[in-house]
């Protein structure tokens, strides 16, 4: 792995400040500065798949737009594959693929195949590569039946699959996905995830995806970045997120009969009692085994299960703390 590969995407103290003009009275305008991205730094090695999450207006899309060269950063340094995106936008464009979940790049009134033909000529993809890539996308994304269908007749899920294929025909080294599963049904989501996993594993494509669906992250990304108010609040593995968020796992125990709340178990506290069933919360970082044996030793245990913390709760908690 070369130095270029270790820091394929380099973001150093990047800022984006928008000046918003607001009408205040008939002629007078108020100017206000909005810091959409407020000093973000991170590095992504080549071939990694990173989830980028945060609430609406956190600065996710703005970051992606700076990484693709659409927006010029107000400050900081930004490099993708050693290229400054804003200065060398078209050069970088050939090496990246972008899917905006809410905007299709396909041609509404023409068969899907025609959109791909345009991509081939725009990106000047050699014929043999194009054939191989199209075949692979068609197979994995299940597009064979759709190639001759005008895009306007496709369902949302079909169109999204079509869009993802269009972004990958030129073998991009990096793929940005902005809400790739938004509005899709369960089956389409699964298909898209499966495909992304495959592309990442086989082609070594670096993938950066923003999403509101945390299942996307759980199933695809080993690394997740949480962003809020234009800053990185967390950057690391999904498991680590639990530790940082001080989230708790829950041990659900079924006892033989109704008993007063369980006490005297170190590291756990009873949070709920409902007949013979009781809920014990303990830190997500701790092991459940000593807890189970401690409960079994002191109480008539019939059955038990462990509930993992809901990542959504963890993140909601992080936002709340930040705001508070």
């Amino acid at each position, binding site marked *: 792995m070369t130095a270029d590969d270790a820091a394929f995407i380099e973001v150093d103290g990047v800022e984006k400040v*928008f000046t918003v003009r607001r009408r205040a009275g008939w002629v007078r305008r108020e100017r206000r500065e909005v810091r959409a991205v407020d000093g973000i730094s991170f590095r992504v090695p080549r*071939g990694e798949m990173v989830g980028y999450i945060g609430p609406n*207006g956190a600065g996710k*899309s*703005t970051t992606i*737009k700076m990484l*693709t*060269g*659409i*927006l*010029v950063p107000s400050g900081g340094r930004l490099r993708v594959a050693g290229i400054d995106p804003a200065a*060398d*936008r*078209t*050069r970088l*464009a*050939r*090496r*990246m693929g*972008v899917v*905006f979940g*809410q*905007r299709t*790049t396909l*041609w*509404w*009134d*023409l068969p899907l195949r*025609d959109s791909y033909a*345009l991509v081939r*000529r*725009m*990106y*000047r993809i*050699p*014929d*043999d*590569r194009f054939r*191989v890539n199209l075949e692979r996308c068609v197979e994995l994304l299940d597009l064979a039946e759709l190639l001759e269908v*005008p895009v306007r007749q496709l369902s949302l899920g079909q169109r999204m699959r079509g869009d993802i294929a269009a972004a990958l025909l030129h*073998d991009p*080294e990096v793929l940005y996905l902005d809400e790739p599963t938004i509005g899709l049904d369960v089956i389409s989501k699964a298909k898209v995830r499966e495909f992304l996993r495959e592309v990442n594993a*086989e*082609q*070594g*494509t670096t993938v950066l995806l923003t999403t509101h669906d945390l299942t996307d992250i759980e199933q695809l990304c080993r690394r997740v970045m949480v962003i809020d108010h234009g800053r990185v609040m967390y950057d690391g593995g999904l498991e680590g997120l639990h530790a940082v968020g001080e989230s708790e796992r829950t041990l659900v125990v079924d006892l033989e009969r109704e008993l007063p709340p369980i006490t005297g178990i170190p590291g756990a506290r009873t949070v709920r009692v409902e007949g013979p069933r009781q809920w014990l919360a303990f830190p997500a970082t701790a092991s459940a085994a000593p807890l189970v044996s401690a409960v079994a030793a002191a109480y008539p245990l019939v059955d038990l299960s462990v509930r993992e913390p809901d990542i959504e709760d963890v993140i909601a908690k992080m936002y709340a703390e930040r705001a508070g």
Partner: protein
Amino acid sequence: MAEARADDDVRAHPPEQTPEPTPARATARERREAWGYEEATAGRGPRAYRGLRAYQGVRVYFLIVGMWVRSTMAYRTSFVIMTLGNLVVTALDFAVIALMFSHVDVLGGFGLAEVTFLYGTSSTAFGITDLLFGSTERIGRRVRDGTMDTLLVRPVPVLAQVAADRFALRRMGRIVQGVVLLGWSLAHLDVDWTWDRVLLLPVMLVSGAAIFASLFVAGAAFQFWASDAAEVQSSFTYGGTTLLQYPPTVFTTEVLRAVVFVIPLAFVNWLPALHILDRPQPIGLPGWVGFGAPLVAVACCALAGLAWRAGLRAYRSTGS
């Protein structure tokens, strides 16, 4: 496949025949070195790069135009009706002037053939630009709804994409009208066709189209800041062509000064046409001023290009 062939010429090293998809990481790197016109012109200086980029722009323009024409043909009846409607509207436009001449013999000292000559040249020059660049005025919509983003992530010049966006073949109507009227006027004009006048006619049409194009592009650039300014742009482009259809003698000196020195619309047809028609130049301009049209056109295009770049850099996209 002529285009595919042309691509091969500009590639520095055509990619090796890879028999089967070898590990993509390696091939991606190979291709990166072989593909781009940036790489293809590496070491050949900025002129080679700009030349190839311009070539790419034109090529992509026609690719997108082709897509739009095919899209239009998905609604063939609608296209036919729109085209006919367009022809009728442009025809009626001239009917106003024809009607005027049924009551008077001269307008501002110009006879029917001469006014038709002005109308024809203005309409032809504008028609060419409207067909090729008219879509740029729609850019405000793309700026507002954020679909501009999808154009910016492609490895081809944005201006070419914007100009070709929603290409409307029905705009041919105005060119047809302009050329017909120009032809009629040439048949009825009493002009001493010296070589400089013969030369000036095509030069005037091309320069005029270029001046209008620079207005379209500058107006489009302005919409990066004010995305609802399409109307302002139309007042210069569509408004400009209407102005130029009448003889300069019917306007005040303030208007004339403005269209010579501020927004040089007068160079589209007035000043060159006055030389062809052997009439004195307005507001004390020298007789050769009409020959300045190509220079003015080049200057306008350069300024419009700068404005376009500045606009693109100021693009703010939308929230999502």
